[in-house]
C-alpha cells in the first residue's frame, strides 16, 4: 500500500513538471498540443475507489489549470475522463482479476488493450478541453481537427513513456 502511494506521488510530480515546464512550450501551431499529464489518471491502480479517483482527477486538472491560467478547464476535462475510465474498465476488465493485475499500464495489460484504452480516454479529455476552451459552435470543424491531432500527439508520447519506464509483468 505504502509503495503504491509513493510511486504514484513521484509519478504525479514528474508528469506535472514535464507538462508545465517542457510540453507547455511544444505544439504544432495551435493544431496539435500534447497533454501528457493525464497519463497519471490513466494508470492509477484498478482497486481505487470511485470517490478517490474523481478527487485525484479533479485535483490534477486544477494543478495544471493554475499553471495554465485556465481555472476549471482541465479540471472539467479530467473529471469527464475519470468517468469514461470507470465505464471502460467496468466493460472490459473482469473484477476478480484486480488482485494479480494492479494497474492498467502497458506492460501489464498488453499493447492492444492499452492503445485502445489510451485513445478513448485521451479523446474524451481533449474533446471536453478544446470544446470548453472554444465555447462556441461556429468553429466546430476546426475544433475537431485540433482534438484529433492533439489526441494522436498525446497518445504517441504516452506510448513512448510507457515503453521507456514501465517493465513488463513477470509471469
Amino acid at each position: 500500500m505504502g509503495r503504491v502511494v509513493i510511486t504514484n506521488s513521484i509519478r504525479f510530480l514528474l508528469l506535472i513538471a514535464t507538462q508545465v515546464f517542457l510540453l507547455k512550450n511544444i505544439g504544432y501551431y495551435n493544431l496539435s498540443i500534447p497533454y501528457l499529464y493525464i497519463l497519471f489518471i490513466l494508470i492509477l491502480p484498478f482497486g481505487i475507489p470511485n470517490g478517490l479517483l474523481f478527487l485525484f482527477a479533479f485535483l490534477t486538472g486544477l494543478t495544471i489549470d493554475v499553471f495554465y491560467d485556465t481555472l476549471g478547464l482541465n479540471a472539467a476535462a479530467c473529471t469527464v475522463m475519470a468517468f469514461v475510465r470507470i465505464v471502460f474498465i467496468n466493460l472490459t476488465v473482469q473484477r476478480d482479476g484486480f488482485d494479480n493485475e494492479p494497474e492498467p499500464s502497458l506492460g501489464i495489460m498488453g499493447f492492444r488493450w492499452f492503445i485502445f484504452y489510451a485513445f478513448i480516454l485521451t479523446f474524451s479529455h481533449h474533446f471536453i478541453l478544446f470544446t470548453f476552451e472554444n465555447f462556441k459552435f461556429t468553429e466546430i470543424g476546426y475544433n475537431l481537427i485540433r482534438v484529433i491531432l492533439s489526441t494522436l500527439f498525446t497518445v504517441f508520447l504516452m506510448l513512448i513513456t510507457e515503453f521507456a519506464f514501465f517493465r513488463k509483468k513477470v509471469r
Partner: protein
Amino acid sequence: MRNLWLFISKYNAFFLLIIFFTISLILLIKNNSYQRASVWNSSNQLIGRSYERVNEISSYLTLGKTNDSLAAENAKLRNQLATSFKSDSIKQITVRDTTLKQQYTYTVARVINNSVHQKNNYLTINRGTKHGIAKGMGVTSAKGIVGIVLNVNENFATIRSLLHTETKVSANVNGNIGSLVWGDGNYDPRFAYLKDIQSHLIIKKGARVVTSEFSLFPEGTNIGYVAESRAKDGDNSLDIKVKLDTDFATLQYVYVINNLLSAEQLSLEAQNKVE
C-alpha cells in the same frame, strides 16, 4: 428512502461526475468573468517563483539570440545620440528646451512565463507594484507591441498578450485608423487582423502598421506590416492581415510603458461621466 440511497450508491460514479463537473464549470465561468480572481493565476507567488527558477535555466539557451537583439538595439540608440551627429555651425548656442515634457517612461522586465499555443495567451514578467507597474499599462518589446498589464502583485505581473481574443489595439496604417484583433478564426501567433478600414481605400502590401494616438501606447509604436489586403464580400471594410513585428515565441525582455499624463487624462474624462 432506502431505495433512493441504494440507487445513489449503485451509480455513484455518475453522481460523482456531476458533482465534480459542476464545481469545475463554476470555476471556469467565474474565472472568465471580467473581474477574475487574481489569486489563482501565475502571478501567484509560489507559481511565479517556480516559473522564475526554470526560466533562469532556460534563458541560457537563448543567450546568443538575446545578445544579438540587444546589440542591434544599442546600435540603433547610439545612432540617435547627440555625439553621433556632426555640427556644422561654429558657434553653439545652448537653448533650454521647455516645450518638450517627458510623457512616457519605460521599465525593462524579463518574461518568465509565456505561451503562444493557447486561445487566450498570457505572459508573466518579473516586475510588480514594487517596481511601479500598475494595471492597464502598455507593454512593448524592442521590435513592437506585446500587450497590456492585467494583474499585478508585489513582485510579478501578468500581461494579456496581443494574442488574446479580447485584446484590441487602435492601429494606424497610412493615416487610416482601424482596430487590430487576433484569434477570431486565426490562431497563428505570427499574424493578426486589422478591422474597420474602409474598402474604398487602397492599402498596399508591405505598408507599415503602427499604433494610433488613441491607443495606450505612444503614438507610432511599431506593430507590423501588411501581409495581405483584400475586400471582403458583402462588407464595406477591408480584410487586412498583419505580420507582427514581435516574435512572441522567443520573447525574452519587454518594456512596460508608464504614461505620466494618464492620471490627468483619466480624471478629466471621468468628469464627463458625472455631468
